[in-house]
């Protein structure tokens, strides 16, 4: 028998600190596989956020630098403009990208910065204990919406992929999920395409990834993976939101 699946080279062997069933673990692996496949390990710089994934630098075996909360798109802009030969990706949560980082994200996309954004949307602020996020669903209970999100008071879940798609500089935006084998395969394709957009100097690309947070959703891993299909995709439909690359897929 031949070994047909093993850990990607760009993923260090450090055990993940993420909770059982957490989407970050899957997404990290997919991004590392793409970095390997596209041969980007020695020219990639990754920018993780504050949040559960602040420790992403312990897992990706590429140059990595912290960013202040929400500022990933600005940091990546500075990197890419100063050193265009690098491949830079930001890895951001929903609070980071859609809350505090809205301005930076919108304007980086608007300028068509040639960066790739991995946007992990789990509808909650994970690391700080489960508070409402900009993408929390209406009626969803969190520690700061103990009675369920009331859209009259707290606004509606924000759809960043659709918002960014309105901007000329945004070239490729797709929403995927990592809650089933089929979805994980599609997510990887989208991530690969997003990196290819950067390699081809086409502009701003983003993959929004609906991701399970069993701990803060107070579910088992399997229940959380199912909740994405049952509830999240009703608010955040999966699929290509914008594609001006002129290609069906990464290749």
């Amino acid at each position, binding site marked *: *028998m*031949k*070994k*047909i*699946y*093993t*850990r990607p080279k760009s*993923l260090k062997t450090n*055990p*993940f600190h*993420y*909770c*059982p*069933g*957490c*989407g*970050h*673990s*899957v997404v990290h*692996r997919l991004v590392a596989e793409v970095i390997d496949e596209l041969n980007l390990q020695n020219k990639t710089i990754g920018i993780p956020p504050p949040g559960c994934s602040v420790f992403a630098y312990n897992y990706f075996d590429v140059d990595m630098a912290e960013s202040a909360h929400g500022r990933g798109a600005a940091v990546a802009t500075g990197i890419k403009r100063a050193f265009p030969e690098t491949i830079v990706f930001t890895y951001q949560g929903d609070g980071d990208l859609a809350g505090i980082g809205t301005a930076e994200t919108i304007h980086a996309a608007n300028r068509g910065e040639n960066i790739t954004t991995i946007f992990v949307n789990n509808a909650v602020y994970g690391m700080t204990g489960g508070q409402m996020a900009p993408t929390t669903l209406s009626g969803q209970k969190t520690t700061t919406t103990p009675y369920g999100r009331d859209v009259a008071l707290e606004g509606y879940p924000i759809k960043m992929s659709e918002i960014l798609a309105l901007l000329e500089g945004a070239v490729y935006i797709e929403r995927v999920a990592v809650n*089933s*084998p089929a979805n*994980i*395969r599609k997510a990887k394709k989208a991530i690969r395409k997003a990196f290819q957009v950067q390699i081809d100097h086409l502009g701003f690309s983003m993959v929004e990834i609906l991701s399970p947070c*069993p701990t803060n959703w107070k579910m*088992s*891993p*399997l229940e959380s*993976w199912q909740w994405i299909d049952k509830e999240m995709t009703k608010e955040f439909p999966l699929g290509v939101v914008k594609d001006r690359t002129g290609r069906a897929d990464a290749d």
Partner: protein
Amino acid sequence: MKGFIEISRELCKGCELCVSFCPKGVLSLSDKLNASGYLPAALNDNGECTGCAVCALVCPEVAIEVYRG
């Protein structure tokens, strides 16, 4: 197609996703805790594994290596 998988006991967090998604039902939780206090998944080596690698695809911990041949 015959297959075989190796699960790293100490990396596994017992999330049971591989158990749920395995199309052949050849995975289940072991009854021996690992050092982190989880019951890790294990292969029932009854020869039914086809090496489809769905378990490795869903495993968040990259704990599974897959062989096929």
